[in-house]
Structures are given as structure tokens and as C-alpha cells.
């Protein structure tokens, strides 16, 4: 076990796009990834579109519930929710729901930069010291924790892929912005994702 416990205070601040690329590189079994509103899904898009990616363009706070729905519908597929800290604050109750239903195939990644980056970097109301991994543990996800650095993140992702969840990894971010923007065409995003999930078959190309 790690000699030093990783906490919200000593976790390395990392680059969201780098972490997203590292996650995507480890996905070899058509795992589903739901990218939360804003820069979280922008960087998922920038990491290279996959048919199993869903990009939110609104409904702030629903990345984890959407991923939970996918996980319940397809228990044999691993599902990742990428959610921002401000977004999670809007829907904290969903952590209790996840703990109660305990889907083995769900992993929650919280991208915590402490600010609403897309609206100009205003601080979130968690500035007083709210610790998302501690909140998750309090909701009934006992293994929730922070990634110490990039290598630790890769180790934790691999653990999520190889063991039963639900898993929760907190990621402290630096202040770098997103690489590009997601193409905002919700119907096309939904159509591609359904095909990626095998839930829709169509002779229309795409």
C-alpha cells in the first residue's frame, strides 16, 4: 500500500486533457464514457471520438446519472462518468444512489479544478474545503480516493477495468483550458452513441 495517503491537499494538480488521453488509451473493450457538461466533454472529444462516447451539451450535473443508466442497462460493459466538480456539486445526491444500487461496472471520475472554468474561472462553493472523495465515502462508496499523480491515475484506471465497482477517483486539475470544442449536434451524438452501445442498428451510414 502507499506509504503516504493521497488527500485532496497533497494530490498532484494534473492536466485534464492528458488524463483524458491516458484513460482513453486504456479502453480496449468498447467501454462507455459519458463526458459531463463543458470542458470535461470537450477534452473527451479532443482525445479522439469513439462510438462509445456520449457528450453532454446541457443538463449540468447529469453525467453520473446518465452513466448509471447505461451501466444498469448493460451490466457487462464498463462505464465511465467524467464529471466536473461544479457539476457534481449540483447533483451530489446521485452518489448515494450509486452506492445503493452498487453497479459493478461503473466508475466515476471527478475532474476537480475548483472553479467554473468555462464561465470565467469563478470559484465553486467548495472553496471552504469540501472533499469530493470524502463525500463519496460518506455516501457509501468506501474506496473513493484521490489520484496522487499520473502514474497513480493509470494504476487506478486499470484497477477499475479489472475489478468490480462502483469506483470513484478524484482528480485534482491544474488551470489549463480545453484543447478544442465538441461538435454540438445532439441528435447525431445520441445516434452514434446508441450504435456504439449496440442499441441501434441502422443502414444509414454513420
Amino acid at each position, binding site marked *: 500500500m502507499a506509504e503516504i495517503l493521497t488527500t485532496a491537499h497533497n494530490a498532484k494538480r494534473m492536466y485534464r486533457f492528458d488524463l483524458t488521453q491516458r484513460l482513453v488509451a486504456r479502453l480496449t473493450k468498447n467501454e*462507455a464514457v*459519458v463526458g459531463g457538461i463543458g470542458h470535461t466533454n470537450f477534452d473527451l472529444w479532443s482525445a479522439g471520438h469513439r462510438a462509445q462516447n*456520449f457528450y*453532454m*451539451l*446541457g*443538463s*449540468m*450535473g*447529469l453525467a*453520473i*446519472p*446518465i*452513466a*448509471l*443508466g*447505461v*451501466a*444498469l*442497462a*448493460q451490466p457487462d*460493459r464498463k462505464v465511465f462518468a467524467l464529471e466536473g466538480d461544479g457539476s457534481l456539486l449540483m*447533483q*451530489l*445526491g*446521485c452518489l*448515494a*444512489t450509486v452506492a*445503493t*444500487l452498487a453497479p459493478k461496472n461503473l466508475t466515476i471520475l471527478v475532474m476537480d479544478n475548483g472553479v467554473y472554468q468555462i464561465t470565467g474561472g469563478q470559484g465553486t462553493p467548495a472553496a471552504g474545503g469540501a472533499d469530493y472523495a470524502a463525500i463519496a465515502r460518506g455516501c457509501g462508496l468506501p474506496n473513493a480516493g484521490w489520484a496522487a499523480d499520473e502514474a497513480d491515475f493509470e494504476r487506478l484506471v486499470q484497477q477499475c477495468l479489472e475489478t468490480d465497482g462502483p469506483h470513484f477517483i478524484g482528480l485534482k486539475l491544474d488551470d489549463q483550458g480545453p484543447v478544442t470544442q465538441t461538435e454540438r449536434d*445532439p*441528435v447525431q*451524438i*445520441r445516434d452514434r*452513441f*446508441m450504435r456504439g*452501445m*449496440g*442499441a441501434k442498428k441502422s443502414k444509414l451510414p454513420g
Partner: protein
Amino acid sequence: MESAGRAWHQIVIDVLKANEVRLIPYVPDNVLKPLIAGIHADPFFEAFTVAREEEAVGIVAGAVMAGRRGMVLMQTSGFATLANVLASLPCAYQIPVLMMVSERGTLGEFNIGQAAVWRTMRPTLESLAMPYHVVTRLDECEFVVDRTIRQAHLTQQPAALILSPLLTGGKSVTPKVVAQ
């Protein structure tokens, strides 16, 4: 349509099963109690409470996109929390998220909070251009619920079913006068 002596909640359960609607996240309501109890008693369904109605809309949206149908149960006040997520998720992405709303705030409501929020429901549904039907009669219940669910899936659109106190009896001012 023949209701064959079934209560409204049994009709709803039969129609949900016939349409393969299995996933039922909900925020509870007194009027929905017999429906919720019947759904929990039937292993066909996966039913559970959520903290907020928004969360349930997200869960059903995700499940539908992954091939599993679902319906959210709530009361009028819960519906009033949903405009943003309905507009930006099931409406924008064209995902057939089904909702069943127990209509509080009308026809004998005792709680002024419920009565006040009731006034927002139809204008919200209208402004979202979301298909909805109000179920008022037992003999129409099967037809309205079944056809609304079918159309939602056939046209890839969310839809709401409002259960009127005319159907359910509602939640009365004094429990004594409720005809069971």
C-alpha cells in the same frame, strides 16, 4: 378499452410490461403508493428511489440509449424542477424518456404550495413542446398510457403522462372522505 375490473395502477403495470418498460426510478408520492408497491413486488421491474427527479431523467436517458426502456415517477412539484434538463437532454437529443406525474395541486388540494406549483406544469410542457396526456378515466387508462409510450419510442421523443385526481382519487383534504 376494457379495464376488466383492474385498478388504474394495475393497468399501468400491465401496459409497462407489455411495452418492455423495466427501469423505474422515482421520487415517491402518496397517490402513487399502490403503483410503486406493485412495481416493487414484480421482479420484471428494476425500481428505486433517487434524490432528485433530474437524476432520474438522466438515468432513464442513459438506459434508453443503451437499450433499456424506463419511466420516471414523480409528483407535480417534482416536475417543476425539470425544465432545464428536459430541454437540454431528452428534448435536444430526442431520447424517449417517459414520465408519469401524479397530479397534485388541483381538484381539492389542501397544500397551497402544491396548488401554486401546479399552475406551472402545463405551461412548461407546452413551452417544451413535449407530448403529454392527462389520464382522467379508468376506461381510457390503458389506451392512453399504451399509445403514449408507444409513440414516444416510435418517434424518439420524451413524453409525460399526468394522472388526474379524477382517475386516482387524489390526496384529499380529509383522509376520511377518500373513497377506497
